[in-house]
């Protein structure tokens, strides 16, 4: 396994600052804004964005955590590996009705996780709008989904793995492209 770093801790911090600025710029509905991180790494990213937004606007933004496992399209008979993904906590401290929800995730790839997240959210209520913020967009969409706020676009091949590691969840910080030995681009 070879690993090439594409973002270090400073670049992640700068990307998040720029995303926070874009969220503020887009504006209009700051009072209703609600950041919801997709488990696992979307949650610490949502917390970091909330801190940046609070510093920029002086307004606290609520942060929630969403587990989309039970809404995935690859559990059951379609899942070749025969292993159910491990469930994690969903915790929405406030109701989402009428709010402008900004979903936060680490990597946008096929778009299937976002589809599952949209379906999950709809079962919790009726937000006024849902936006999407991702640290890395690696392309290869399989569904018609696009992000509103992107930290970095990382062109990648399907045989590669884009790994986001965060201090809160992994003890290290950075974004890497990894590929199994033997696969050449």
């Amino acid at each position, binding site marked *: 396994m070879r690993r090439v770093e594409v973002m270090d801790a400073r670049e992640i911090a700068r990307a998040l600052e720029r995303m926070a600025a874009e969220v503020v710029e887009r504006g209009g509905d700051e009072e209703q804004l609600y950041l919801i991180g997709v488990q696992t790494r979307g949650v610490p990213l949502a917390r970091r964005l909330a801190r940046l937004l609070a510093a920029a606007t002086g307004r606290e933004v609520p942060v929630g955590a969403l587990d989309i496992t039970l809404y995935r399209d690859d559990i*059951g008979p379609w899942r070749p590996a025969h292993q159910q993904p491990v469930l994690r906590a969903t915790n929405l401290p406030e109701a989402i009705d009428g709010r402008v929800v900004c979903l936060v995730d680490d990597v946008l790839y096929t778009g299937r996780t976002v589809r599952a997240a949209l379906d999950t959210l709809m079962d919790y209520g009726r937000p006024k709008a849902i936006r999407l913020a991702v640290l890395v967009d690696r392309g290869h969409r399989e569904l018609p989904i696009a992000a509103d706020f992107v930290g970095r676009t990382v062109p990648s091949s399907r045989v590669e793995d884009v790994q986001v590691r965060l201090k809160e969840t992994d003890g290290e910080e950075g974004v890497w492209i990894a590929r199994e030995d033997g696969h050449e681009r």
Partner: protein
Amino acid sequence: MSGERVTRLRGKDLLGIDPLSPGEIQLILDTAVEMREIAQRPIKKVPALRGKTVVNLFMEASTRTRFSFEMAEKRLSADSLSFAAASSSVSKGETLLDTALNLEAMQPDFLIIRHPHAGAPHRLARVLRSSVINAGDGAHEHPTQALLDALTIRLRRGGLAGQVVAIVGDLQHSRVVRSNVLLLSRMGATVRVAGPPSLIPVGMAALGCEVYTRMEDAIAGADVVMMLRIQLERQGRMNFPTVREYYDFFALTPERLKLARKDCLVMHPGPMNRGVEIDSRVADGPQSVILEQVTNGVAVRMAVLYLLAGGYGEPTAN
């Protein structure tokens, strides 16, 4: 306990606690913890088992367990069919195996079975493709009950290891006590059981518990007291002189509860015989978590269905 985190169950079926490793028990409980949240949502249903069919084959009276399984199935979007022995061909003399084979010919994915004879689910599991879940077989095992009891203790106490759990009552006819002793001792708890000598089966201690004939000795300093129902319907004859005498020696009363730890949890798998094995002042008292057990039962059954639906077997690479 092994350090490696288990992420799937090894077997096709859930027939008892006995075949489960500590890691598998941990996985079911961890999954159940997150399943609890679904009941708090405005829409209490997730699509995880969409298109799966579950047959509930209850050959013996049950309210709580059957409703709990049905609720779990519905919350996961499975289609379920419930089978009541009285109104079926069982009353016309069909064998259990034939009934099950006929049901399986309709391609269900799960068969939940409650049966008066020990080993009935195991017999079916050997011949059926569908996953079989034991919802109580005779006086043998009732795995989902033990799992929901363990979840209740864990949520209240933060863990199972080191807890002293006293189980009191009719040990002879109880499948709940067998599954609970196996699970709790496997997870590092100390289990004490007590009951009248006439209701203690031979070999009880071999399951991994301390056996007492005086209830007071078993509950002294306990963290949890679990009362078992006196199963009057399972006893050909009474194994104790009178219900009144049973109450005098083996009922959990406010006075006896004082012998246990001050914040000792009071549990009962239901249905309760108030005034026989448990005093109403205790059953409805502040230490009782009996209704929490019922709530947790749905979450545990959702966890088992979800984990079995995803496939099983030894972990593969990746």
